[in-house]
């Protein structure tokens, strides 16, 4: 981090904990619920958002002085959608198997309010370099929560991590399953993602009482 000034460091580090997009700013919840049943899907989504938010923030920041305020929402949405569609089409033509993996995420990225939220809150008022750092920082903060939730849901729900059977085989009754352990299928359902995020908030705010809400 020696390359970055104190202020720039803050841009990246704050969203990781004290200003986390999911647990504090309440942005990007829908996708956090939809895709965290598997660790792999969570990682893919985190990387995609990192990419789109980093570049999108720079683009919007470069355009910030010429965007008419009356139609800024349309402009922002169209910039994200165009970026995502371009990537999707290029992948379809030149890396088809990769695009098959990612195509499900396209819609989720466009509708992800974390992207619009950061455009509106940061990129419209700051220069491209700072916006880039802000984009990266927020995407990382978002990714961290996604990966934590994905880790617990896959481990407790399917007994696997990234597809590897870490707790033994539930059908052959090996490993943990031999002493009567069962997978909690409930963890795979979306409501449990809400509850896991709720518990993460609990842990985070117990560690940092400054974040506790009055009511």
């Amino acid at each position, binding site marked *: 981090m020696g390359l970055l000034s104190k202020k720039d460091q803050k841009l990246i580090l704050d969203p990781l904990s004290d200003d986390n997009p999911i647990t504090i700013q309440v942005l990007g919840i829908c996708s956090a619920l939809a895709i965290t049943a598997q660790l792999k899907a969570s990682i893919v989504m985190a990387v995609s958002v990192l990419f789109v938010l980093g570049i999108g923030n720079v683009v919007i920041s470069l355009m910030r*002085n010429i965007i008419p305020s009356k139609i800024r929402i349309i*402009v922002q949405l169209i910039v994200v959608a165009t970026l995502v569609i371009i990537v999707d089409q290029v992948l379809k033509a*030149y890396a088809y198997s990769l695009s098959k993996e990612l195509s*499900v*995420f396209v819609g989720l990225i466009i509708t992800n309010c974390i992207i619009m939220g950061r455009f509106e809150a940061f990129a419209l008022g700051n220069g491209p370099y700072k916006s880039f750092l802000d984009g990266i920082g927020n995407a990382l903060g978002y990714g961290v929560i996604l990966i934590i939730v994905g880790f617990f849901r896959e481990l407790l729900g399917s007994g696997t991590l990234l597809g590897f059977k870490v707790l033994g085989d539930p059908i052959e009754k090996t490993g943990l399953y031999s002493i009567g352990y069962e997978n909690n299928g409930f963890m795979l359902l979306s409501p449990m993602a809400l509850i896991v995020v709720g518990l993460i908030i609990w842990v985070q705010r117990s560690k940092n009482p400054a974040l506790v809400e009055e009511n």
Partner: protein
Amino acid sequence: MANTDGNGYTIGFATIMVIVVGGILAALATGLKPAIKENERFEKQQNILYAMGVNENGDDTGSVNFIPTDKVEEEFTKYIKETYIIQGGKIAQSDEAFKVDMKKESKLAKSTRKMPLYVGERDGKKFYVIPMYGKGLWDAIWGYVALDDQLVVQGATFDHKGETPGLGANIKERYFMDDFIGESIMNNGKYAGITVAKGNNDPKNLTKDDNEVDAMAGATITGDGVTAMIKSTLKSYIPHIQKLK
């Protein structure tokens, strides 16, 4: 800096943006169309071959290994002997079968729908590969099921447009697709289809004559979609397969 709040500026900006964005996307879509179409054709061939057991799975039991794209064209002509189109209750040999757009056909009434059938041969055994198209939780799902003369499933592939990753999206995982192998679609001489069943106390799918495979946890609606798709599609193919064998 110009006044960015004026109506004239706003309209001008909007116009330019529409032209730029529209231009980029249209150029991209037209320019990449041939490459995308080719990839889609390869994928379809890979899927058909996979269903009839022509794949590179080898000893690997965990993941799906299609024939590589550079070989698939050649293998496809080698294994797929005849293609048919069923329409209005009549079956006819046709080279157009591969070009039938399942998505478009699925919107037509059953009596006017074109239904392709691929007949392949591997190691002296005949396979009837049936394409199907249905609906999952979020969007379209589709697949190919290969039957033999006895109407027993020899292989299946499924795919989807936008099912939830980690839940419904598991229909394209090996463990789900492999479950179908060996299941008969008939029960005591009657058509039964195959049901994706929850809690059938047979997670290893050892009982092959119950017309059931084990469902994916947390993906009820996608599983029901697969059941409905298989049931309604295979039903209209059976009389024609009986005639062909």
